[in-house]
């Protein structure tokens, strides 16, 4: 792995308007809004609503940001940047690893910003809980980075951007990250299980509710990691042609 490339990629993501406006700005604004609406009401899982909202919107922002890696990859593919890299000793896996790690690296500040907003508006957790939730959410973002990459290897820049943008709405809404599932019809709770974002929310919140089922969420996210990873490995090998 090339550290120069990694730090350049992180810089590129952070200075893009997409990152500030959508990846950080949207979940932050939504948290400030929804966090106030539901306030300290206690949800059926026994947690205060503002805590649940904070965790889920942090998860939404971070997973969305990671998913957008694919748009960047698709754009670079359309532009021929990967061809350019083929004229350097860097190999395909080196490129992919940089993409995934940089997506993970920028997910951390997204989580931190929403958490800080939570802290400032009175969300309460013990110090170790803050740490555990942050860590679980952060690791849980990995499947989204790889999923984004897989999508990015199939389309052109504009298309992938539009597809990813369109995906984020159902992922957030139907995955239960925007609005708590208990206020929605039962069939929507069932449907939510088909979205990886639902399981990301679970990975973040289960440690707080002492649900014994955390491992289910971890396993499901593992599946959401494995399948796109296999697609990426298979697809990238073929993907060296002139576009």
């Amino acid at each position, binding site marked *: 792995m090339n550290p120069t490339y990694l730090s350049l990629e992180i810089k590129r993501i952070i200075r893009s308007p997409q990152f500030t406006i959508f990846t950080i700005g949207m979940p932050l604004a939504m948290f400030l809004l929804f966090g106030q609406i539901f306030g300290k009401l206690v949800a059926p899982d026994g947690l205060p609503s503002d805590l649940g909202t904070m965790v889920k919107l942090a998860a939404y922002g971070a997973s969305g940001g990671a998913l957008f890696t694919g748009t960047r990859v698709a754009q670079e593919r359309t532009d021929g940047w990967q061809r350019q890299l*083929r*004229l350097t*000793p860097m190999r395909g896996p080196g490129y992919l690893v940089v993409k995934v790690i940089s997506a993970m690296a920028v997910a951390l500040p997204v989580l931190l910003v929403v958490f800080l907003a939570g802290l400032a508006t009175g969300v309460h957790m013990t110090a170790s809980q803050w740490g555990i939730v942050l860590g679980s959410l952060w690791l849980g973002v990995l499947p989204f980075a790889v999923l984004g990459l897989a999508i990015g290897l199939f389309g052109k820049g504009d298309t992938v951007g539009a597809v990813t943008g369109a995906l984020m709405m159902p992922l957030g809404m139907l995955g239960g990250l925007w609005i708590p599932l208990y206020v929605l019809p039962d069939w929507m709770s069932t449907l939510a299980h088909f979205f990886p974002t639902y399981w990301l929310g679970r990975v973040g919140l289960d440690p707080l509710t002492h649900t014994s089922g955390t491992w289910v969420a971890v396993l499901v996210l593992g599946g959401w990691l494995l399948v796109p990873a296999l697609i990426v490995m298979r697809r990238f090998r073929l993907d060296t042609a002139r576009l």
Partner: protein
Amino acid sequence: MDAGTAFALDGLAKRFGEVRAVDGVSVEVRRGEVVALLGPNGAGKSTTIDMLLGLTKPDAGQVRVGGGSPREAVDQGLLGAMMQNGALLPDVTVGEIVALVVSTHRNPLPAAEVLARAGLTELAKRRCGKLSGGERQRVRFALALAGNPQLLVLDEPTAAMDVDGRRAFWASIREFADTGRTVLFATHYLAEAEDYADRVVLMRHGRVVADGPVAEVRAAVGGRVLKAVVPGATESELAALPGVTTVQVRGGRAELACADSDTAIRALLAAHPLTADIEITALGLEEAFLALTADEPEGALR
């Protein structure tokens, strides 16, 4: 292929559907040569270069660069290339993109030297998306130099450069070649091939139609044009003279394309003593290029 060979293409072929883009190309280039790859659009130049760089797999034939495969040569930094419309990252500065490519190589040139050689020191802090066409070409050139290569491959390098930019660019290529390293460039500018190449490889319809020093390629089309005022002569009379290939009479002035202009002029003066205003010129590379790459039947070429 021996230690003095920079690269060798042996019987390369590539088809795209029904089109034979490259159809049996064999070229061996010695270390230190500066070679121009010339040909009209669709001649197969870019496909040949793609195969030389290892970006496209040939259907048949072999590519050896410095004794290994193109991929090995790229990995060792032996082969640097500047592609036509090669991608840059628009949101990244010139300094950053150069530092990135430098960082991928094992024995690179220092980034500051790469920038200096490509004339980019002043532009290091500018984002690639804000560069002019000529400036972008210089960045691509810088990226090609980063690994300190022995062989430099350039596809249409001076497209989008202005006159000064072109001159400066060729000066840095000259500097590079003077250290005994090899350059292959594809170009549409015949003057560039004439001025900067030791050797010209002409392609047409996926084949090499001429390959040699500039003077030799020029001679390959049958050499010279004889112009004169020949009172009372008809075109058919002139065409019958020995050494003459074709004749055109325009405004009382005859233009004789000659395979052997010495024989032709003797015969002309003997048959038409009143011939005046005689002028004999060698074909420029431009005419040679047009003659060799014009869409004629195969057999008419040599």
